[in-house]
């Protein structure tokens, strides 16, 4: 009932199919290694990701112009995941039948490497069991948690529950 009518992005806090397509990186790039997926499409006055990127892959043409990414320059380091104030940047990597998604996480308890968690989609619905592969923690306490999920869910899983 919350999704009725109008601009689906603004209405539900969930990207539309069209928008998901827009932010999906090239498959061959994601197969080479982790790459950033920027789910920030509004004209928010912010340029944190632009200057946090050490490889110049994130381009901000103006403070209120949404970021653009050069997938070839992106090294998948995850600095943007840790800094984005909107927690709107993720990393994805495709490895065979699996996908690895890195999610910004700011809740307790802290996920542990090897732990089994429930992968959630953009609505918070459970869609798969997942394994924690890596936990990166910034000094301001935001974590970037990499979980392994079935490959086909790489553009669906955006959250997790412990």
């Amino acid at each position, binding site marked *: *009932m*919350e999704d*009725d*009518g*109008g*601009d689906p*992005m*603004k*209405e*539900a*806090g*969930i*990207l539309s199919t069209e928008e998901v397509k827009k932010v999906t990186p090239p498959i061959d790039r994601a197969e080479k290694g982790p790459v950033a997926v920027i*789910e*920030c*499409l*509004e*004209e*928010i*006055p*912010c*340029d*944190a990701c632009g*200057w*946090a990127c050490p490889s110049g892959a994130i381009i901000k043409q103006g*403070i*209120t112009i949404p970021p653009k990414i050069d997938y070839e320059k992106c090294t998948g380091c995850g600095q943007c995941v840790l*800094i*984005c*104030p*909107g*927690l*709107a940047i993720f990393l994805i990597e495709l490895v065979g039948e699996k996908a690895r998604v890195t999610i910004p996480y*700011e*809740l*307790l308890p*802290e996920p542990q490497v090897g732990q089994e968690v429930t992968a*959630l*989609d*953009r*609505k*918070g*619905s459970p869609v798969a069991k997942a394994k924690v592969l890596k936990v990166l923690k910034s000094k*301001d*306490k*935001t974590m970037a948690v990499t979980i392994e999920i079935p490959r086909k869910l790489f553009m669906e899983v*955006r*959250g997790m529950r412990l």
Partner: protein
Amino acid sequence: MTLNRRIEKHPILEFPRRKPVVFTFEGKKIRAYEGESIAAALYASGLKIFTWSYKRNRPRGWFCGVGKCSSCLMTVNGIPNVRTCIVPVRDGLNVQRQKQGLGTLPSSFNENLEVEKLDVELAVIGGGPAGLSAAITAKRLGCSTVVIDENFKAGGQLIKQTHKFFGSRENYAGVRGIEIANMLLKDLKELGGSWLLSSTVVADYIEGEKHVLLVPSVVEPKVRVIRAEKIIVSTGARENMLIFPNNDLPGVYGAGGVQTLMNVFGIKPGERALVVGAGNVGLIVAYQLIQAGTSVEAIVEAMPRIGGYFVHAAKVRRLGVPIYLRHSIKRAIGKEFVEAAEIVQLDENWNPIQGTERKIEVDMIVLAVGLTPASEIPAQAGCKLAYIPELGGQVAIHDQDLRTTISGMYVAGDSSGIEEATTAMLEGKIAGADAALSLGYKPDEAKRIKDKAKRNISEFRRSPFGEKPRKGKERIWRMMEAIQ
């Protein structure tokens, strides 16, 4: 009251509780910690009813947490109508609630009221993002300043913002609000800026070219009379109330009040929440509630769309929080405090659609339905005000330098029109630089700071989210031009 609502572990914040304090509440000993307010300590111990309404004797509880409503007035050490949310606990305090909300004046009182006179070039009223930036800017240019705030912790609403700010690098993008507050406070301290906490400005009188502020202390029998060449009013805003049955029940809280409880004092406000309003404040407070360990059952929003940033909405959605658009709260349910909320769908004319009512079991209802600028001081001093809906209500008419119609009085931040913290800091810079400039301090540098802040602020307002305040500001500037 053996309950302890204190949060022990938080994903972002730490709550060092060093020195225990014991005070008496209606004959019972209450254990608290130094640095807590009386109201917060009572809430932590499980107290929900703080007072009763005068006419109908209805229970009232925590609401704003920053001294701007009257829901927590109690008698402290014999003094009635003390705003317990802004008075710190200390050993031996004797606190009592007031029957039908009314206190009784003590038969005798301390006649030795201490009066202290102070002279300063710039007095900044309100030590939030706008006020701190104003004081830092003016002090750096050489102006003597004092920041006056009625809270006992400085930093305004910044100290409860656990989320990272948007913005540009030089305006703290990617830094949490609490960290920005620490940085600003450190800057001001290093510059030797002075402070008056726990002090309420109750009046501003004009004497010749000077402003004379009457400033009683919140915690001791003392009044300061501050003569200032310039004053900057950066008093922030008050939370808006929404009209629905039982909206006065304890458990119906302002979003900022909830943030104060959980993010300043580390006290869990409740177990299950309904958030009303999907603007940035509602979305952020929902996320922060989850971080504090509260379950957010739903967010309702009367508009057909989310008012805040998509990314803030996405953050709570992927944690499973539903956002019901075109929905509102119909009533709060409960006898002495909130036990449930009834929500209802609205039609295109904002009327409730019969049969769509739904009951949600919650113990708190968080109102995030906008803010109203705190314009009391400009109004009392005789400043010309205007009602500007885009700015949230009555504001002092001002120009682009934030000068009002009263010579030497500036406004900045939310009290000059509801916007957000980054633009508040920029407005503070403009007002602080202009005040220093008009006192003759470092004119070239002051002008440079002012022009840069103006450029930054107009960039910010170019965003679609800045359109409303931009229109409001343009209206108020035109009014100022017409007066001049």
